[in-house]
């Protein structure tokens, strides 16, 4: 369990460390680098592990790491700066991050964060003066079915209540090491509510591999093609085709091809991969091994989002067990030449790293900036090797195809969307959790199953997906109708759809990697307009501005993040216009600021609040 009880966090960023601190830092750096080797592609993993020991990354540590890996210090600084969970400033010994997704907010996360801040005497986003604790918001932690949720030193706590917040505050105030906290605080429920072929799978470790090995890789590819399986990560690319491109790409045999399992699951409101990794990890790793067998890969990576740090140890155990069973490593199931192993890489708080080329950059220890395509990962992926990046659920489904055949799989679902889909259901319903439905199920059927009534809107596919109004609830969940990566957030008639869209757009602005102009600046400009509306200064011309920005974001952004960033507002304006119009108080242009409010800082500094320190509307 990552825990840091060292006194280092009290050290200011600029103050010279004591000789003893320097010694300690060096020891930690050496220890971590010894484990990974002085390989630049391990940079992110090295930084994450050093920070788990030190709670932050002092300037001198950044210098040391750069020297040890023989890379530019600026590059290391650039990587530290990119990831939300890495810090070059001292951080509290307890670092509390409240999930800020709209679902957590609807469940009261904001009030709870304020409450904890009050109890521990600090401001959100700041560290307490004694270096004990820092508290702030973070993007969706993937616990929408059991929110509000938070992370403390990277560990997940869900189902927050007034009592739990009290208890946590008390434990922090007493400086109780995380290892001594009541362990039931860290329990995460699976909440599996509806099972179909995947979640009902009774496959034992090795079953799918044995079936595949009996017939050879070509036969496996044949079944994959027949299955018509499409990627579950969002884009819906045909998996067999991706594997085919990859296995046909020229390769340096000594290095081999690469299989990557995308477990970044950063899309707000999505948590189905979490449950697969908790309860069906063998299926996921076996799917990766099947992919390796099909394409001829030697190396596999599971890229696990930082928010799921608590899953690391159990997943490592599953990997060890599989090695012991001959399901990973050299000569898998005694088949000479079938060598494949899997390494887990952690993310560190960056939604964009779910985009497959940003993910590859991150795997190589770099800033998670999406690459230019072509070339595509299937020919030039991890360190330039042919690489297949697949979602957790896609890979788990491959096991069903290997055992039951492609035709059986293709029989389920619709013509263009075979098989089933896991939905992460959260928001206003009786039974949030994981629901497995065959493709083709209607929105109404799903709503019925989870006990949702008085529904105003469903957000399909997360923040970057689509907002559906009741008139669309007869539509089908399928690539050819309403595609989804798995999030299904429900909002009843009491919810303000403007708030929902605004939450999502702020999420995109926070998560923009900043590589391309439209998304870096456009998402910030959009949040500015939404805040203006929200503060009561909205005017008609603002809608035209929003419209232009939407267009430019969609057409010129470098990756799916920027292209989708305007979706929530586009859908909102189309389907929930009254929520916007009630904020358009002015017909003509209106500035975004208020003269009196602009004086607030001056009033705080001078300690004045008399009539003379205010500008009234008439005066202005």
């Amino acid at each position: 369990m990552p825990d840091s009880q060292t006194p280092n966090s009290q050290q200011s960023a600029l103050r010279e460390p004591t000789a003893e601190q320097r010694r300690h830092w060096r020891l930690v750096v050496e220890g971590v680098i010894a484990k990974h080797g002085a390989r630049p592609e391990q940079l992110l993993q090295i930084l994450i592990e050093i920070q788990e020991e030190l709670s932050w990354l002092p300037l001198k540590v950044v210098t040391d790491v750069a020297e040890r890996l023989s890379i530019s210090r600026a590059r290391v600084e650039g990587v530290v700066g990119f990831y939300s969970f890495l810090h070059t400033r001292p951080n509290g010994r307890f670092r509390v991050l409240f999930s800020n997704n709209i679902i957590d907010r609807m469940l009261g996360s904001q009030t709870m964060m304020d409450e904890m801040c009050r109890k521990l005497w600090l401001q959100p986003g700041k560290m307490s003066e004694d270096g004990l604790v820092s508290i702030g918001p973070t993007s969706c932690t993937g616990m929408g079915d059991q929110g509000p949720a938070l992370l403390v030193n990277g560990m997940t706590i869900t189902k927050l209540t007034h009592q739990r917040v009290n208890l946590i505050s008390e434990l922090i105030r007493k400086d109780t090491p995380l290892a001594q906290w009541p362990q039931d605080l860290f329990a995460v429920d699976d909440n599996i509510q509806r099972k179909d072929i995947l979640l009902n799978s009774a496959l034992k470790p090795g079953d799918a591999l044995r079936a595949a090995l009996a017939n050879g890789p070509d036969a496996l590819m044949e079944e994959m093609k027949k299955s018509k399986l499409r990627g579950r990560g969002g884009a819906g690319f045909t998996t067999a085709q991706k594997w085919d491109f990859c296995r046909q790409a020229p390769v340096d045999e000594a290095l081999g091809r690469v299989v990557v399992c995308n477990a970044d699951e950063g899309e707000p409101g999505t948590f189905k991969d979490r449950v697969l990794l908790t309860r069906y990890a063998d299926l996921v790793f076996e799917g990766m091994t099947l992919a390796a067998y099909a394409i001829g890969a030697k190396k596999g990576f599971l890229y696990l989002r930082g928010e799921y740090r608590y899953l690391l140890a159990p997943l490592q155990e599953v990997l060890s067990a599989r090695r012991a069973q001959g399901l990973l490593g050299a000569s898998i199931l005694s088949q000479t030449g079938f060598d494949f192993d899997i390494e887990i890489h952690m993310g560190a708080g960056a939604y964009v790293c779910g985009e497959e080329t940003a993910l590859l950059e991150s795997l190589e220890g770099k800033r998670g900036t999406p690459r230019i395509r072509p070339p595509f990962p299937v020919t030039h992926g991890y360190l330039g090797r042919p690489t297949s990046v697949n979602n957790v659920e896609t890979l788990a489904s491959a096991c069903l195809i290997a055992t039951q055949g492609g035709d059986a799989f293709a029989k389920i679902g619709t013509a263009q969307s075979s098989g089933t889909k896991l939905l992460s259901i959260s928001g206003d319903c009786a039974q949030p959790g994981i629901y497995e439905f065959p493709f083709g199920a209607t929105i109404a059927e799903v709503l019925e199953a989870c006990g949702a009534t008085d529904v105003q809107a469903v957000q399909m596919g997360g923040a970057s997906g689509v907002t559906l109004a009741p008139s669309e609830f007869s539509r089908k969940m399928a690539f050819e109708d309403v595609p989804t990566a798995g999030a299904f957030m429900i909002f009843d008639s009491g919810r303000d759809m403007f708030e929902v869209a605004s939450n999502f757009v702020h999420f995109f602005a926070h998560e923009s990697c900043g590589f391309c102009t439209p998304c870096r600046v456009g998402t910030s400009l959009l949040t500015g307009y939404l805040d203006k509306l929200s503060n009561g200064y909205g005017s008609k011309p603002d809608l035209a501005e929003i419209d232009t920005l939407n267009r430019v974001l969609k057409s010129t952004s470098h990756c799916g993040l920027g292209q989708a960033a305007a979706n929530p507002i586009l859908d909102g304006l189309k389907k929930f216009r009254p929520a916007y119009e009630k904020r358009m108080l002015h017909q003509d242009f209106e500035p975004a600021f208020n003269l009196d409010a602009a004086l607030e800082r001056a009033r705080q500094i001078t300690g004045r609040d008399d009539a003379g320190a205010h500008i009234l509307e008439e005066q202005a």
Partner: protein
Amino acid sequence: MSQSFTPIGQEMPGLDQWDVRHMSQSFTLDGAEVPFTPGQSILEAARNAGIYIPHLCWHPDFPAHGSCKLCVVKVNGRHVSSCATPAAAGIEVKSNSPEIREERKVLLQMLFVEGNHFCPSCEKSGGCELQAQAYDHEIMTPHYTLFYPDRPVDASHPDLLLDFNRCIFCELCVRASRDVDGKSVFALSERGIHKHLVVSSESGRLADTDIDPSDKAANICPVGVILHKRQGFTVPYGQRAYDETPISEQGLPNKETV
């Protein structure tokens, strides 16, 4: 949701679409026939044919970077970055259309408001590519609310000045330092709107890096970030490169002025 294009990265065409193919090699750009050799980008092919597509982060000495998006064009109705998209036989490219010009204008305005650009007092004025693009796109105002970021100047180096306020994140200095000078003096840190340039020293000062004024990185900035000291105003305002001739007429292979 508009479906007029397939989002870049949301689709994967057959690999043959960008494979080297030896067939009749030309495409049309705003109606004109443009020949190309396999492997060339749309932007390069256009440039060789004497047609200028506006760009900022692209540079003839480096592989495409694809960040500024000024080179956006429409290929068969779908938006792409022309610097990073291989030319292909028979495609129809639109560049100088009202729609694309308007989008480029917005992108330029974005670059202006996110930094602090006080052109009348900038040493680079008249030789600045951002300003030159703004002239070409008839930008009269930044249009959007200015961000006024806080970006202190670094004057620590005896011969070079860094005014981060004007950075457009083209990463030409980053690439030149890493790939040509072999030093990696520059890098970007943080992300989103907080992204900024850093130099490779613990103090964060340029003076403590191994940069040399003759390095390619010190001489490549298209705007007024990396400046040489004691050379201000050797050419008076009004007589500088883009004061006299638009960038669109200078940015072609046989007319490069850099």
